[in-house]
């Protein structure tokens, strides 16, 4: 029973690492380049989930000081603030990667890595 409750308590962390591995697998093995960009996105999301989970405290309030209620537990706002920056970075990476893909598609007419390599070999001969 205790194993199960450990899993339930740490479900965010387990989910984050599962997502991270799914993303890494997609980036490294998929032959479609667009899906590789999506894989990188999944990896980034996994890290954001992990980062936000660190600041979470069960049953705590949003970090707004209310004099009527007095001192209570607050969720740590710093990780969420940092992840806002992280999201901006992730968006710019995705945008740049997609713009590179548009150029690749114009040059090769495909986004499958095997076909690109084949065309490159034919061009080199």
């Amino acid at each position: 029973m205790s194993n199960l409750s450990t899993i339930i308590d740490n479900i965010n962390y387990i989910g984050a690492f599962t997502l991270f591995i799914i993303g890494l697998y997609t980036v490294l093995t998929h032959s479609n380049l667009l899906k590789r960009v999506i894989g990188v996105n999944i990896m980034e999301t996994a890290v954001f989930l992990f980062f936000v989970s660190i600041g979470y405290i069960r049953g705590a309030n949003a970090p707004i000081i209310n004099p009527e209620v007095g001192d209570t537990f607050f969720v740590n706002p710093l990780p969420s603030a940092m992840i806002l920056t992280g999201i901006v970075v992730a968006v710019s990476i995705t945008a740049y990667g997609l713009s590179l893909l548009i150029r690749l598609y114009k040059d090769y007419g495909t986004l499958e890595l095997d076909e690109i390599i084949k065309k490159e070999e034919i061009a080199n001969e």
Partner: protein
Amino acid sequence: MNSAHLPVYILLILLVSAVTTPLTKANSKFFNIKLFGSLFFVNILALLQLLMVWSSGPLRYSFGNWDSAIGIEFLIDEYTSLLVLAIVIISTLIVIFSTKDILLDISKEKTPSYYTLVLLLMFSMSGMVMTNDLFNLYVFMEILSLTSCAIISIKDHRANTMASFKYLMLGTIGSVSILLGIAMLYMVTGHLNMTLTNETISTVWQFYPRNILISLSFITTGLGLKAAIFPLHIWLPDAYTVAPNSSSAILAAFVTKVYAFTLIKFVYRVIGIEVIKTISINEYLAIFAVISIIMGSMFAIGQKDIKRMLAYSSVSQIGYIFLGISLSSELGLSASLFHIIAHALMKSTLFLTVGAVIYKKGIRKVSDFDGLGYEMPLTLGAFSIAALGMIGIPGINGFMSKWYLSLAAFEVGKPIFIVFILISSFLNAIYFLPIGISAFLKESMYREQVMQKDDLPLSLKAPIVLLALGCIITGIFPDIIMSFIERALPTFLSIGL
């Protein structure tokens, strides 16, 4: 002008001139004045900062006067200010070189955006070196990885697009793993400031050994991927080969070095060397460093394209820096800190001379270099100086870094590393010496054996000569760099500063 705001001025000038560069017309008089004026100012400010830090000790700058636990803090010690000065000076020389050379690869209308990228690159590298905050480090790192991809893909050719896409994907995997590692450190300590993180870790690390181990392995893998240590180097040869000449010079001179320096910061400043030794990360680093030193040179031997050869030799040189880190002693650290600057000088000389040859003759095959020394004696002379430095001939700075590294290996009682350093020197000699020898001594069927003057434009000649002189000066007087390193060493090695 002894202001405490110098680091911010440096970054601000770079950022503002990066943003305003595309507003003026390319290669007009005003454009050049603005670009080189701002670069000149940045050089002066970096020099002033160096002098200030030298006279009054390490500088801590907190943004907006926030307490260092809340706000972002810069920590500029003697070595950091020297590295910032080196980044700014060498990048300026490369920018001077690129004014003529870049027109080979991109159209004239696009040059302003190229300079925007180079200025942003300088901005993010200086920021990464100076910052003392983990998340700030991540943000600078992302700016750096995006701009360093962009200066490859600015040349509109499909090989460039493919190389920079590969670099982007692997670089992003690297930075995502580093962010995950930072998150785990934050979990343990609750601080993002490096000094405070170190203070907390040195007291509580026994309670979270697994957390620190996992986070360190993510961080070292990520930084190893970005610094191109051997099994993770696959993006590097393509990227350096197809990039415009001046871009590959900047990439090889500093971008990978900055990541290696960041690893030094993580190992010595954030985690602390005692903890590293206990969980024996440095043993693994040493293995990868040695594999990288040997395999980089092995791959370089067979290459036909000279830029690809230089790229593989970069992989082996990064190995030296990692070896110095992994020795985890005072001498080892100073050897790798020395090698960061020494190798930046040598590699930028090599890439710029090759760039000049490509500019003038349009040849990039190693076998076409026969007898070229008669036509371009100055360029090939500079090339030979830097190549001899790579091999480790006394009198050039490459010898000094190998010397310090061997001393360090001897001191920690691991003389086996000296054997590897020697093997790598021989391998370097195998692929570097023939080029210099055949350029000056071998007869070529296509060229006359008459010594001519280099008729390169001054903007190509001057940076090459200055960088080659830099290699020799720091080789004969290594104390110029070592005195800064000696002063900065306590900030790396003492716990809690």
